[in-house]
């Protein structure tokens, strides 16, 4: 009496990710059934070898498919985080550009603090020997 290996195989196919299973389930089961039939005709040794090969191949592929699926998910979520950060950076740059270019905003707050001489640095050390005419140019 032949055991119904295809039924067991179909159950094992449920371990695949859903999209992969829907794509190949019927074909895989049919191919498996055809090869199983051939092996039964060749004897029990062939059947045992076939079952072992299939089990090893199937388990390796199932792990591989899930691995690909998880990696894709991780990549997608990482990209989402990156996109959000880029969006935030873009928004900040936009505000900065508006502040820098629009006279209604610019100069309201006085001088750029980055250009101001810290209190603990002497005038000569900070500005050198040049004669400062305004904030942006120096004549030596």
């Amino acid at each position: 009496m032949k055991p119904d290996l295809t039924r067991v195989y179909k159950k094992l196919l449920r371990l695949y990710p859903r999209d992969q299973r829907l794509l190949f389930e019927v074909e895989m089961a049919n191919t498996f059934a055809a090869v199983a039939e051939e092996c039964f005709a060749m004897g029990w040794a062939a059947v045992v070898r076939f079952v072992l090969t299939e089990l090893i191949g199937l388990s390796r592929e199932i792990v591989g498919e899930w691995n690909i699926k998880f990696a894709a998910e991780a990549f997608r979520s990482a990209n989402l985080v990156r996109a959000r950060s880029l969006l935030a950076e873009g928004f900040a740059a936009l505000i900065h550009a508006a502040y820098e270019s629009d006279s209604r905003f610019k100069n309201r707050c006085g001088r750029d603090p980055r250009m101001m001489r810290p209190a603990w640095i002497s005038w000569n050390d900070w500005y050198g020997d040049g004669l400062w005419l305004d904030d942006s140019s120096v004549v030596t």
Partner: protein
Amino acid sequence: MRHVSPRAKDEIIKPLTEPVMLILISLADRPLHGYALIKEIESLSDGRVRLSTGTLYGAIRRLLADGWIRRFEQDDKSRDKQAYRITPLGYRQLRRELERIEHLTRAAKANLRTRTL
């Protein structure tokens, strides 16, 4: 700086795995379905390689995703068998891989000849 000659994304040369190589060789002259592919690969490798169904369809899925093979509409759909055929891109990749192997074989033979002298 990487000194790599610019190529289109789909034309990147990567060494093919044995199942992928055997599948492409089997499909090179005619479309085949899953079971026929297993038999063809077994015959090509003189019985050395017998792909499991899982390995075969895993490779088929990757080849379909890369666009190296595509599903082939058969007239007879009664047996629920789906045939696959190689695409021009897959054919190009196969040719490149064969050239790479030929080059390696030539280099290996030359080295072995020098060693025996």
